[in-house]
């Protein structure tokens, strides 16, 4: 679709192609995101294999959109950088979580291993703890061989148990590819 075709994404590494494939095979119809360099290959791959990619204006808007899409019977996923989690906390905690409108959030990490920007660090080191305080389970992806188990498991948790569940893309994933 055109909006993602405009993205100047680097070639998708194998793990992101597999992650996109597992999401689509697991029923994901749409990905709501705010553009992020590290998520761009995943978004482009999702678009290429048939999921719609919706570029929205803010991460809390992605959460609202996904909650509505789920309430209407669909299967959305949200892609966001961990700094965007700060923008999305209220929508997660007062809409998606209490209403049982579960979906997978793919969270790309900044502010941790390899980070050189001091402004990224406070939310980076806080992100998983914030999710945990909200009762949202997060599952770290550090190695390509874990993509299938983590993605399938997070989708089951979101779909069946109605839980927002986070797949955390750790820096090692990119550093090792």
């Amino acid at each position, binding site marked *: 679709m055109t909006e993602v075709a405009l993205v100047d994404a680097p070639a998708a590494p194998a793990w992101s192609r597999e992650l996109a494939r597992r999401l689509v095979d697991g029923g994901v*119809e*749409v990905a*709501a995101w705010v553009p992020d360099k590290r998520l761009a290959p995943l978004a482009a791959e999702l678009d290429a294999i048939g999921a719609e990619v*919706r570029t*929205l*204006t*803010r991460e*809390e*808007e*992605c*959460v*609202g*959109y*996904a*909650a*509505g*899409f*789920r*309430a*209407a*019977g*669909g299967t*959305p996923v949200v892609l966001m950088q961990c700094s965007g989690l700060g923008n999305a906390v*209220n*929508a997660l*905690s*007062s*809409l998606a979580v*209490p*209403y*049982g*409108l579960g979906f997978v959030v793919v969270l790309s990490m900044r502010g941790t291993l390899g980070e050189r920007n001091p402004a990224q660090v406070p939310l980076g080191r806080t992100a998983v703890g914030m999710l945990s305080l909200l009762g949202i389970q997060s599952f770290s992806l550090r190695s390509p061989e874990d993509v299938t188990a983590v993605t399938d498991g997070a989708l089951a948790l979101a779909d069946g148990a109605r839980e927002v569940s986070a797949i955390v893309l750790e820096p090692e994933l990119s550093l090792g590819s």
Partner: protein
Amino acid sequence: MNATSAVGAIVRAVPEALLVASLGTATSALRAATDDGPHLYLGGAMGSALATAVGVAEKRPERRVVAILGDGELLMGASSLWTLAGSRARHLTVAVLSDGHYSITGGQPLGVQPAFVEVAAALGLDAVRADTEGQVANALGGPEPCAFVEIRCDERDWPGPSPFVDPPIVRWRFEHAARA
């Protein structure tokens, strides 16, 4: 008009529509006007109700969808107007209950220029103002409904029902209504 009569006019114009109501006056008025019908009432997430309605509408393109928002709510999520303008969801109407105040927090003034229709129109949305129930019906009814209607509520009385809903029950009832 007050909020309840405005929402009553919406419901009469599009009785089969899926309705999403923002926290506060919109939720209370929709509960009052529909005898607590199976709609997606938001008890929080202020600023996210329009995005939620866009998600509903893009999943269910065969259904009419109306987002019923307070004017304060619209301001808090105003960038979603850009999302709406870029959406293929031409079956979604945003109805703003415009009284110039944040009612749920105690009636403080918005303190901004109420240029809602002008902003929506600048984004290419078919946008109108409605001062009467008949104008509300005209904006929503018919084969080509407006994308945006600012409903001016000159009476600011609180609709009545609590805006604090039970989320799992709201979700369960709405999911069934959306599948019907």
